[in-house]
C-alpha cells in the first residue's frame, strides 16, 4: 500500500518535472507583451504573426520542413533496407555491421559535426540542403533501424515461407507480406526521424550556411541576442507538431492492430 503510494507520488513528480518547462513557456506564446515574462498583459497572436511574416522565421520554418521531409524519406528508405538486410543471418558480418549502423546513436553530435565539416569541405557539400539532410539522416537511421527491426522480429518468419509456397517471389513477398507487417515500425521510425531532424542544432551549427538555418537553429540564435516571445511561439509550433505526429502514429498503429 505504502509502496503504491510512493510510486504514485514519484510518478506525479516525474511527470511534473517533464511537463513544467512546457507549461511555463507555452502560455507566453500568446502574450501581447514585448517580453518573455509573466504576467501576460493580454492575449494575442502577434508572435505567431511575426513567426510567419518575418523572413528569418518564415524561412527557418520552411527549411525545417524541407530538411525534415528529406531526412524522413532518406532515413526511412535506408533504415528499412538496413533492417531487412541485417535480418539475414550473414553469420560473421551481421553483428559488426549492426554495431556500425547503431554507432551514430552514441557518438556525440559535436564529434560527428567536426568530422562531417572536414569531409563536406572536401566533397563540396558544405552549406547545402543535401549536406544537412545527409547529416540528419546519419543520426536518424539508427532510430529507424531499431523500430523496424523491432517489428520484423515480432513477425512469424513462416509467413514469408507461406507466401513463397503460395507463389510469391521475393519482391512480391516483401511488398504484400513483410512491409505491411512491418508498417507500424516503419511509421514509428519515420516520425522519429522527422522529430530528430526538427530538433537537431549541433550538426546545423557545424554544417549549415545561413541558407539552411532551421527553426531550432533560429530559436537558439534568437535566445542569445534578443529574448523575444517569438521563441515561445516557435516552441508552441514544435510541441503542437510533435503531438500531432505522435497522434498520427498512434492512430496508424491502432488501425493496424485493429486489423489483426
Amino acid at each position, binding site marked *: 500500500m505504502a509502496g503504491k503510494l510512493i510510486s504514485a507520488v514519484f510518478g506525479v513528480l516525474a511527470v511534473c518535472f517533464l511537463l513544467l518547462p512546457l507549461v511555463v513557456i507555452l502560455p507566453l506564446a500568446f502574450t501581447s507583451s514585448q517580453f518573455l515574462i509573466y504576467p501576460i498583459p493580454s492575449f494575442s497572436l502577434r508572435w505567431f504573426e511575426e513567426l510567419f511574416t518575418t523572413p528569418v522565421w518564415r524561412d527557418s520554418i520552411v527549411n525545417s520542413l524541407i530538411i525534415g521531409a528529406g531526412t524522413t524519406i532518406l532515413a526511412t528508405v535506408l533504415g528499412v533496407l538496413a533492417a531487412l538486410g541485417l535480418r539475414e543471418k550473414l553469420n560473421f558480418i551481421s553483428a559488426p555491421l549492426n554495431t556500425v549502423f547503431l554507432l551514430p546513436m552514441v557518438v556525440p553530435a559535436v564529434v560527428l559535426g567536426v568530422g562531417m565539416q572536414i569531409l563536406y569541405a572536401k566533397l563540396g557539400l558544405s552549406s547545402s540542403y543535401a549536406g544537412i539532410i545527409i547529416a540528419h539522416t546519419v543520426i536518424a537511421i539508427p532510430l529507424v533501424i531499431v523500430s523496424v527491426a523491432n517489428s520484423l522480429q515480432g513477425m*512469424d518468419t*513462416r*509467413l514469408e*515461407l*507461406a*507466401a*513463397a*509456397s*503460395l*507463389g*510469391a*517471389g521475393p519482391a*512480391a*513477398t516483401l511488398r*504484400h*507480406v513483410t512491409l*505491411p*507487417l512491418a508498417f507500424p515500425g516503419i511509421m514509428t521510425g519515420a516520425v522519429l526521424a522527422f522529430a530528430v531532424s526538427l530538433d537537431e542544432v549541433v550538426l546545423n551549427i557545424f554544417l549549415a550556411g545561413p541558407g539552411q538555418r532551421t527553426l531550432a537553429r533560429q530559436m537558439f540564435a534568437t535566445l542569445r541576442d534578443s529574448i523575444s516571445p517569438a521563441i515561445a511561439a516557435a516552441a508552441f509550433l514544435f510541441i503542437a507538431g510533435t503531438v500531432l505526429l505522435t497522434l498520427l502514429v498512434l492512430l496508424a498503429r491502432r488501425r*493496424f492492430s485493429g*486489423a*489483426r
Partner: protein
Amino acid sequence: MVDYHIRLDGVTKTFGALRVVDNLRLDIVRGEFLSLLGPSGSGKTTILMMLAGFQDATEGTIYVDGHMINDIPSHRRNMGVVFQSYALFPHMTVAQNVAFPLKMRGVGRAEIDARVNRALDMVQLAALSERRPAQLSGGQQQRVALARALVFEPGVVLMDEPLGALDKQLREQMQLDIRELHGRLGLTIVFVTHDQSEALTMSDRIAVFNKGLIEQIDTPRMIYDHPATRFVAEFIGETNLMEGEIAGREGGEALIRLDSGGMLRVRDRAEFDAGRRVLATVRPEKVELSEAPAAINSIPVAVTDSIYQGDHLRVQLQGPGQRLVARRDRRAAEWTPGAKINATFAPEDCWVIVP
C-alpha cells in the same frame, strides 16, 4: 506401372556434424496420402522443408514428375503447404488470404472471386470470408489455411502437423475432412505427424522415421500387424515383446524357444533359419486370459493390476522373466491382482521380427 509423383533419391541433410536426414530414398505415388511418422527430431519437418524448397538438400536429388527440382525456388514449385501454426496473413481477411495465391498467379478478378468462394464453401467458411484470422477459432484458421493451400489446385500438398494445435474432437473431425478432400480432389498429400493414431486413420501409406532413416514404409495395416523392426512395433501402438530363438518348423508354423522358458508356435517367416535370435510380438488385444492353460502358446502369469479404461480393460501381467499386457473387453471377467492365470494367443497373431 506405378506412377511416381515425387521421388527422393539419396537425399541427405546435415546441420554441421548432425545428419538429420540420411541418404533417403522415397517414392511418393501420384494421388496417395503418405504420412511421415516419427518421434520428435527424427527429421520429418526437414524433409518437408526440402520438398517445399525452404531448405536445400545437402546431397541427393528430388524429382517431381520426373524433373529434378532441387534448383527451383519455392514460389515456382506449385506445392500447397499447411503449417502447424497456420501462418495466415494477419493483415488480410479470410477471403484475401485465400485469394493470395491466385493473385500471385495473375488470375483475373472475377475468376479469383469465384474460386475463393468455391474454396471457402469447400471448408464451410463462406460466412466468415470478411473476418481477419485473429477473429477465428483455431479450427476455423486451420480450414482457412487448408483452403488457401488448395485454391490454386497444386498437385502436391505438404502438411506439417496441421492438426497439432487442435483439441481432440476437432482434430478427429478435421482428419476425416482432410481425408475426404484428398479422395475427392485426387491430391498427393505428404502429411507429417508424430501422432500414430492420426497416421493410421488418414494414410494410404505410412513412412516410419527414426533418426533420419526410414524404418518401414507400408500401409497402416501392414505397419500395425507386421512391423518390420522393434522400433516400429513399439512406436505404433503397444506391443508385447518376447525374446527367444527359432527352434524349428512344424506344419507351416515356426517354433520359438523363449529365453524365459516355454515354446511358442508362431506364423512362419521362411527367411528366419533355425537358431536365429528373434523377437515374438503380440498386440495386447490379441492376448487371451484364462484360468486353465491352453494347448499351445500358453504362458503362466500373475495379474499385477487391472485398470478400467472406459472402452476396455487393461490387465498388467507378470510372466516368467517378463511383463505382459492384455487388453480385454470391459465386460470380461475382472481379474484381481495376484490371481495366477494363463496368457495365450493364436499362432497367426504372433509376428516375429529380428531384435
